[in-house]
């Protein structure tokens, strides 16, 4: 099998595809991932804040039933497999984008799948803030809103960046799956050429490019998180 995968013809073909299709695919993967992450953060960050602040002993206690609903909805969305979620949200996608297939359309299910995940990540980051620091802010007359915006979020920035990196990489992985519903990007190439047409070399290149992107995102995230953390003595 390998002699076929790495034959001269296969290389030539892969090279042709690499030149003609990969630049667009990399770009599509990038913008789908970045946009989806951005939307997921817009929805997930406030939700994550509510999960921590709204608790009984939080800075902005919310009714218990509301907290329960929040938790159930988040768990529910997180437990639906992404493949099925993509199909389930077709009507919503049509409503927002106008069509349920294509690269732009794949952003909708990605956001729906990612924002509850982001909310949980934000929740875990905010829980790392020492309750003593929050108490100190209360003793200085901080309002709940000030505690959230001036203490909880700024104090957990390094952790938020680390978790945002995790979110980007997870969404990148999901976006590759959206090739199924016609979403563009490296995932589509891997599926179309590799899976449907047995061009394993092309698939291999697509996977390697995904790995490279994950590596780049991870090292940027790690570096930013370390740089932002003033607790590390320099």
């Amino acid at each position, binding site marked *: 099998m390998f002699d076929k995968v790495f034959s001269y013809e296969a290389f030539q073909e892969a090279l042709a595809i690499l030149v003609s299709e990969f630049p667009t695919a990399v770009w599509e993967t990038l913008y789908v991932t970045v946009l989806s992450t951005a939307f997921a953060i817009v929805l997930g960050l406030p939700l994550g804040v509510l999960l921590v602040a709204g608790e009984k002993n939080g800075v902005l206690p919310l009714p218990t039933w509301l907290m329960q609903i929040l938790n159930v909805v988040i768990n529910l969305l997180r437990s639906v497999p992404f493949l099925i979620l993509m199909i389930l949200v077709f009507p919503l996608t049509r409503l927002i984008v106008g069509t349920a297939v294509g690269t732009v359309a794949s952003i909708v299910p990605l956001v729906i799948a990612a924002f509850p995940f982001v909310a949980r990540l934000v929740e875990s980051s905010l829980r790392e803030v020492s309750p003593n620091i929050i*108490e100190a802010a209360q003793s200085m007359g901080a309002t709940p809103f000030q505690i959230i915006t001036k203490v909880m979020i700024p104090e957990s920035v390094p952790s938020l960046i680390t978790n945002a990196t995790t979110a980007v990489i997870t969404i990148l992985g999901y976006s590759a799956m959206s090739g199924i519903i016609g979403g563009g990007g490296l995932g589509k190439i891997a599926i179309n050429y590799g899976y449907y047409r047995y061009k394993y070399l092309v698939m291999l290149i697509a996977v390697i490019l995904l790995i490279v992107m994950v590596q780049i995102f991870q090292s940027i995230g790690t570096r930013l998180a370390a740089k932002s953390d003033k*607790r590390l003595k*320099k």
Partner: protein
Amino acid sequence: MIEIQNLSKSFAVSGGTVHALKDVSLTINNGDIYGIIGMSGAGKSTLVRCINMLERPSEGNVLIDGVDIGSLSEKELISVRRKVTMIFQGFNLLMQRTCLKNICFPLELAGVDKKAARERALELLEIVGLPDKANAYPAQLSGGQQQRIAIARALATDPEILLCDEATSALDPNTTHSILSLIREINERLGITVIIITHQMSVVEEICNRVAILDGGSVVEEGTVSAVFSKPQSNAAKKLVFPDGIGESIADTDEKKLRVVFNGAPATNAPIITKMAVDTGICANILSASTKSIGDKAYGNMLLGVPDTDSAKRVKEYLEQTADIHVEEVSANV
């Protein structure tokens, strides 16, 4: 003036209720450095948090200058909290902000203009003796320095009352000494009333003028520091004054007992007690001693037995010539 009236606080925990405070009444006058001392679990932290309503009391009132602050709305409480500020055992600085921005923080919360806040913060950095740390982050400072920044932050809104919750418990004796000196200076220069929560007797002895002893959620003794510590009545007070307990044989003797307190006395290289015996001709009996040297300074206390009232007086006079040594007679009817 702070009046704490019949304050009780209970917490519901799994398997019942914990009564953290039981019918506590105290009056703290303006300008006092008031110590509230007790073992862990005595309810000190709960009590101090009731003074700024971080904890709502279950029963009773806290009056600050005649205003019942328990009856205020959350909004009104915010302005109270700018006048009643707090420092903590763990300093609780914002770790992602520079020292300057930490000090600006309460002003920022109050909506003070940025430039004015900055100027005030720089002024406060001078007061706490760290003018060069404006742009340093808390993690780059020692514990004592962090507490100085926390004090500066607590002073930013021109408070009338400063609550210190075990503020020196995480610090070594030398640093404790310097932080307490700073607190005293603040009390004297700015006229701020200070309430100090501690489990360390040495802290109360060093700077408080009045003290309340808290045990099991109740005030068991209250009064001037010298009165309470020279004639401890309650078991809790006795335990503080005689931490190792006092044997019956000691209690039975007719000797006068003197408590010698070392608050950073330069005593390590000088045999003070021996010199005292030689110079005065009084043979003191060391009943118990718990002292330690940090650098060239001595901290801790010692219980001496001397034959009669006259020699007790002379020993007191002799020892108190040395700076940072404090002597008081105690009656030990243990």
